[in-house]
């Protein structure tokens, strides 16, 4: 059961209401950054406080929570955050994407397609796509309000001019519902197509920046590009060494002191499920 | 056809920072000028000949009187019209060859001479060709054509000025001492140019100190005096 010294999910009820109101606004205006009163959390900024506050406001006693970091359930951060919610809510947790109702993620979208009724909660470091080119926040807000996004393409142009190709390989800017340009958080561009018309609700929380934004289910999410330099996802020549998948995002792992490398799925649940299925068959 | 009619034209300068000193440049000028006619202004230095040309051109504001110009079929009083109209008149009807070439840095002689044509919409190639022909006629050596006139001699600058003033077809030409720095040969060229313009029907109002030129081109004289007006 949950720790009796803390309110359910750590945050007080008023804070949860405030965050839910912001979330409603965010869902009503896809891709629009809603300012919210981000709270002091028991971990520093930069460790997922935005995502955690969203999960804390959404989680209920009948939910099943999955937490991943770079696709993996067993990295330090994922373990700590899962532990945090177990302690403050007593809610069931899982590593299986298909069993989760809430999935909090840092920097990846699960390979297993999500379904209607699931909520994907992204941890976001920098929320504003214009912050690189336009340092003045007043001006950036106006540009969002007026839909003036020429500058985003300027950044992409710059990449092509200097490097021959658009260099963003992660946190690749997207246009949501043909209106707002958004940063999808540092997910690899490989994952961008998954966001387009996803049946699940996607919510994004930036604790330090104090912004929440959302993409409702079945909303168009298009990656920015040029007509003659269209958006492309990464591809590998190798397949996963553990499960043989050729359609997932692969991590390159050094396995010994001689520098031997192997490629394996970043999504541990996806890889594990595939391996289990193969063992079942054999 | 009367191209220019000047009626009781007076010009007074008030120098506000020199005890409001009043200097009268024009005492009441009256004359009219027809197409194909050359009127030469005569008078001692300081009688306002250059000031008259400048006032007719709109460079000076008249204090009193009228300057009626026949511009594209209509008679317009330059003294009472708006700056845009004056610019239009300068572009299409009235040309002015001043005494000194105001040198614009970095613009070549060729470019200076071609500009009046370019401003009237003549295509670049034709304008340049005509400019070259004009410079040739005025004996400006080809090696100078692409240079800015800042380093030219006084005579060469004057000839560039003349080329600039004569290249387009203005119904009215104002000439202020166009031959002052020229040698005999080039003076002759300018006389020919003026006579050609007259033959085309251009009205010419000029100041010439050189008697030879005066006699060659003048049809009438107008004597400028300081106190009263007399028709020559």
């Amino acid at each position, binding site marked *: 059961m949950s720790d009796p010294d803390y309110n359910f999910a750590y945050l007080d009820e008023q804070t949860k209401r405030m965050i839910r109101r912001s979330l409603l606004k965010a869902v009503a205006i896809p891709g629009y950054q809603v300012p919210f009163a981000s709270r002091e959390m028991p971990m520093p900024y930069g460790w997922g406080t935005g995502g955690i506050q969203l999960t804390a406001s959404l989680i209920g006693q009948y939910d099943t929570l999955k937490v991943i970091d770079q696709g993996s359930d067993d990295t330090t951060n994922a373990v700590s955050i899962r532990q945090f919610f177990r302690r403050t809510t007593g809610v069931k947790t899982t590593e299986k994407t298909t069993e989760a109702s809430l999935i909090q993620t840092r920097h990846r979208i699960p390979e297993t397609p999500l379904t209607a009724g699931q909520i994907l909660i992204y941890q976001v470091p920098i929320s504003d796509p214009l912050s690189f080119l336009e340092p003045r926040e007043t001006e950036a807000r106006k540009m969002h309000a007026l839909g003036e996004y020429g500058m985003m393409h*300027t950044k992409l142009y*710059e990449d092509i*001019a200097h490097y021959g190709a658009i260099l963003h390989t992660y946190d690749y800017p997207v246009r949501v519902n043909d209106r707002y340009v958004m940063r999808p958080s540092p997910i690899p561009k490989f994952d961008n197509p998954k966001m387009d018309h996803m049946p699940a609700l996607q919510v994004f929380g930036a604790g330090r920046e104090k912004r929440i934004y959302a993409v409702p289910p079945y909303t168009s999410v298009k990656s920015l590009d040029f*007509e003659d330099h269209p958006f492309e996802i990464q591809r590998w020549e190798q397949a996963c060494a553990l499960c043989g998948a050729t359609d997932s995002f692969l991590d390159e792992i050094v396995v010994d002191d001689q520098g031997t490398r192997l490629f394996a799925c970043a999504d541990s649940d996806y890889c594990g499920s595939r391996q289990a299925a193969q063992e079942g068959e054999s | 056809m009367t191209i220019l009619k000047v009626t009781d034209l007076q010009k007074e*300068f008030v120098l506000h920072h020199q005890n409001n000193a009043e200097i009268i440049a024009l005492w009441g000028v009256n004359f009219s000028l027809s197409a194909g006619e050359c009127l030469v202004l005569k008078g001692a230095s300081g009688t306002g000949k250059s000031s008259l040309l400048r006032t007719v051109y709109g460079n000076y504001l008249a204090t009193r009187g009228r300057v009626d110009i026949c511009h594209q079929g209509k008679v317009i009083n330059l003294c009472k019209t708006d700056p845009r109209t004056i610019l239009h008149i300068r572009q299409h009807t009235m040309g002015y060859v001043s005494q000194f070439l105001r040198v*614009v840095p970095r613009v070549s002689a060729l470019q200076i001479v071609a500009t009046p044509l370019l401003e009237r919409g003549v295509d670049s190639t034709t304008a340049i060709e005509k400019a070259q022909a004009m410079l040739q006629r005025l004996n400006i050596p080809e090696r100078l054509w692409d240079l800015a006139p800042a380093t030219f001699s006084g005579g060469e600058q004057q000839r560039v000025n003349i080329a600039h003033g004569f290249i387009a077809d203005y119904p009215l030409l104002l000439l202020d001492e166009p031959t002052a720095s020229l040698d005999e040969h080039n003076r002759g060229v300018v006389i020919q140019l003026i006579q050609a313009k007259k033959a085309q029907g251009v009205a010419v109002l000029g100041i010439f100190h050189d008697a030879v030129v005066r006699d060659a081109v003048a049809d009438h004289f107008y004597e400028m005096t300081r106190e009263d007006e007399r028709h020559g």
Partner: protein
Amino acid sequence: MSEQALLQVSDLAVRYGDFVACEAINFELYAGEVLGVVGESGSGKTSLLKALSTQHVPSQGTVKYTPRDNKTLSLYQLPEAKRRHLMRSEWGVVHQNPRDGLRLNVSAGANIGERLMANGQRHYANIRQQASDWLTQVEIDVARLDDMPTTFSGGMQQRLQIARNLVTQPRLIFMDEPTGGLDVSVQARLLDLLRKLVAQYQLSVIIVTHDLAVARLLSHRLMVMQQGRVVETGLTDQVLDDPQHPYTQLLVSSVLQP
């Protein structure tokens, strides 16, 4: 002569509390005209320029502009989005300090291409080609297309700023002391370029300057400002050669002749 004025300014005033920066400003500007606004520091010319170019909302008066579609607009009755769109498509602003008018952290090509991209162009090669063309027009070596503006000299930065503005073929450009801070020879080159572009593209320009030589070279008409008001206006050569107002006479006589 019966064509529609591009810009009509009526009774314009800019006040900061009790302080009057400029007032009672009335004039019209037509296509292909260059209007010079001269005056010393504190004359209000910069405030006027800001009010005209939508950078500052005037306290009084109207500014009417007739765009390409010939439907006259009253500038400050438009929604801000429309004003900003106008700034990007039909107008240009050349700032005194090129750093105010450029993005210093992207290449020259990106600087020029930005407006095209802001207006919806999405073909990289086309945008790049247009940027190259304009770089040539302002006499910057095309090889510098991918260089950062911070590596350019002051004169080059200024010319880049001009290219950045001209890429959308504006009809009206506002310039605030465009030659300020530049070496004399660099100034000459810039002025020359401006004259050429004005003639070539039939640009209308409002240029604010304290330098009478620049005004004489570039402008057709001149407005002389003193302490917030226009004290004299007329053809440039007439105002400079036959100044009527005491202040104009003072300005003209103060200019050093080298």
